[in-house]
């Protein structure tokens, strides 16, 4: 099992969309995301990326987020 993703992956969270349900943090197989006590601009408990280097790029968070609030990019695609 790989320790890291083949290429570094960036996790983007849209704080205006997040409703703090916790699915991404709970079901991420690598513990990349964690719920915090901080509130989003809309007043929801916010999720944060705690260790992006562990991200495998599996895309589960992107698929499971009910708000279309997370997506992944690989490094080449970043600006």
């Amino acid at each position, binding site marked *: 099992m790989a320790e890291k993703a083949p290429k570094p992956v960036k*996790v*983007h*969270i*849209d*704080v*205006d*969309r997040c*409703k*703090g*349900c*916790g*699915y991404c943090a*709970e*079901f991420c197989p690598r513990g990349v995301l964690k719920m915090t006590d901080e509130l989003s601009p*809309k007043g*929801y408990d*916010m999720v*944060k*990326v*705690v*260790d*992006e280097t562990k991200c495998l790029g599996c895309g*589960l968070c992107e*698929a*499971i*987020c*009910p*708000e*279309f*609030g*997370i*997506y992944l990019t690989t490094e080449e695609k970043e600006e």
Partner: protein
Amino acid sequence: MTKMLTVDTNPIDCYLRVDRIPHIWCAGCGIGPATGCFVRAIDRAGLNPDKVAVVSGIGCSGRVAGYIKLDSFHTTHGRALPFATGLKLANPELNLVVFSGDGDIVAIGGNHLIHSARRNIDMTVICINNFNYGMTGGQMGPTTPLGARSTTSPYGNFEYPFNLPYLVAASGATYVARWTVLHLRELERSIAEALAKPGFSFIEVLSPCPTVYGRQNKLPRGLDEMHSYQERSIIRDGADPKDVELSLNGPIVVGKFVDIERPTLWDCYQQMLTRASKPKKR
């Protein structure tokens, strides 16, 4: 270490009416992930989005039609299937998807469900089953488990629920599957198969409803219901639909149960036309 960004473009946004996002569904509602699976399945099935038409009924699941950027129709309670039937028969090139909820499709829409399956009309039905009428505050419906609490069964539901895969398969559907929203990859693949397959495809999607169903049934957080899916789900592709009924705490059998070939309504209609005196194509 910690990153927080407000970003512009989730790739899925090209399929969303972003001027209406964030949507109205509750935190933890499973309709969002199901919608994401649907949208990715359209690409996976290689469909032309301009030819995909989505018809929904009334309820939380019925709101999906308003959030995706396809030709979409938010019709009356229970009547998405006959509306979609008219669309499909008038333009067989359309890929019809009915995306609606358990109360809408199975209770008030129940008659249209069995007849559409009987006809094997070429369309895909994604039935979000959150075990209650969510939009109106959590009343029981024909998929509410025996004994479950709801606002109209405060002492526990005293009715048996439908076994939806069994009902739809018996009525004539040629593709029947059930997944929970936790089974994201399987659900996406199933929807893609159903979209590409001619005939009546029915996919039951179990979804958390934390605000009303969950709260009334000791599953107050979406995570609670998702964990319950995790613990209770068994994947059994090819299971006999007769054996997959759901109960309040029993196993949840998911999988692809039926995938058969049968001439569609349009096939039969074409055969009829050759018998009519002037067989002419539109």
